[in-house]
């Protein structure tokens, strides 16, 4: 990282200094303006990873469309999944403004060069998982994305504002589903608790490694791409989610959980980072399946893209 920084300073120290001053003044950077190469690189990496996560995230939820327990729950789930696809498209569009085509970004995903959020490598085993995803996974995403709406890159910030509005629906429909389960039979309550037990820790991992182990965070914060650290964001999520769990009778799967009256924050056990890095390295329960499905859908859609293009060019000639 240091060598890259030095290199970009060496590229043009005067422009870089003016750029950093603009960031400190809270200005937004727009696509055609000068930016350090490392700023462009970090943004492209982070935004494309975000876009891939939205699209891969459609898979665990799609698993339950045909088995939704009522027509209302089914249309809600369909609308939510359509939103996730939309979020992916907003983000691909914003990433493209940095100079990389969507086709190349998708190629990077398929070749394993780009990542997506590891949380989507866990399976959705019972109906309450759909509630847990909306409430916990989207809840964690909202904390992160509310911060990102203030990011220094204009197109990313604008995409986030739009996404945050829609995530509110995702989060609330999830919690609403969990309430319905907790008001149900003993079996339904057990399903909700089971989903809680399996999604709580992966949701906490979504914020990434501890600040002291996150080399990207330092640079992302320097460039005001991120305005708050992984640990601070995680703590915000923990503090606002635990009361929501308790009020509907769900237990947080953490024997060491306690509220610190002095700090006003909840304290949890440490996260199982071995599990986190294992899933990132491709050894999660569903990594292979998620990537296989994405590649398959992409390849099977190829003739549609070609046919539409052929149709368009034929009508242009006429």
């Amino acid at each position, binding site marked *: 990282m240091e060598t890259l920084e030095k290199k970009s300073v060496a590229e043009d120290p005067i422009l870089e200094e003016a750029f950093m001053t603009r960031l400190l003044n809270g200005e937004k950077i*727009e696509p*055609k*303006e*000068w930016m350090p190469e490392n700023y462009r690189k970090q943004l492209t990496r982070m935004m494309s990873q975000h876009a891939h996560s939205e699209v891969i995230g459609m898979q665990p939820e799609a698993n339950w469309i045909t088995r939704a327990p009522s027509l209302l729950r089914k249309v809600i789930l369909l*609308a939510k999944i*359509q*939103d996730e696809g*939309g979020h992916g*498209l*907003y983000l691909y*569009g*914003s990433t*493209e403004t940095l100079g990389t*085509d*969507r*086709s190349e970004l*998708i190629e990077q995903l398929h070749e394993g060069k780009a990542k997506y959020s590891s949380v989507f490598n866990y399976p959705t085993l019972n109906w309450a998982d759909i509630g847990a995803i909306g409430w916990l996974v989207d809840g964690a995403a909202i904390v992160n994305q509310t911060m990102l709406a203030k990011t220094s890159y204009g197109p990313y910030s*604008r*995409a986030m504002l*739009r996404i945050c509005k*829609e995530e509110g629906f995702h989060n609330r429909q999830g919690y609403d589903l969990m309430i319905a389960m907790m008001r149900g039979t003993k079996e339904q309550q057990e399903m909700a608790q089971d989903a809680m037990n399996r999604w709580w820790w992966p949701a906490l991992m979504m914020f990434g490694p501890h600040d002291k182990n996150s080399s990207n965070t330092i640079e992302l914060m320097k460039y005001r791409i991120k305005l708050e650290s992984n640990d601070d964001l995680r703590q915000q999520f923990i503090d606002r989610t635990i009361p929501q769990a308790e009020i509907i009778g769900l237990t947080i799967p953490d024997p060491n959980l306690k509220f610190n009256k002095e700090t006003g924050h909840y304290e949890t056990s440490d996260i199982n980072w071995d599990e986190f890095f294992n899933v990132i390295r491709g050894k999660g329960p569903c990594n292979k399946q998620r990537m296989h499905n994405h590649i398959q859908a992409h390849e099977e859609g*190829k003739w549609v*893209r*070609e046919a*539409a*293009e052929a*149709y*368009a*060019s034929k*009508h*242009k000639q006429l």
Partner: protein
Amino acid sequence: METNQKKDSQWKVWEVFVQSKTGASFTHCGSVHAPDKEMATQYARDLYTRRSEGRSIWVLPAEDIVATQPTEAASLFDPADDKIYRHPQFYKFPKGIHM
């Protein structure tokens, strides 16, 4: 287009502008990939107006948009800075006169 036959097509980029209500300006809200104007309109509708955000949509090929460069900003916009007489506030009248 013919030269790109071997490459997987993601179609060209269209910029999307939405008018949120009657009388409002059309506001840029993002982009879509589409092979032609009909599909660009359809995709823009699906992507940017799922919650009644619009009553009318413009789409146009991104490659046809002409934009000024940020580096030109000084020569383009600075000359306006010293023309304060273009603003109504420049003109002061005695008390008691209502314009």
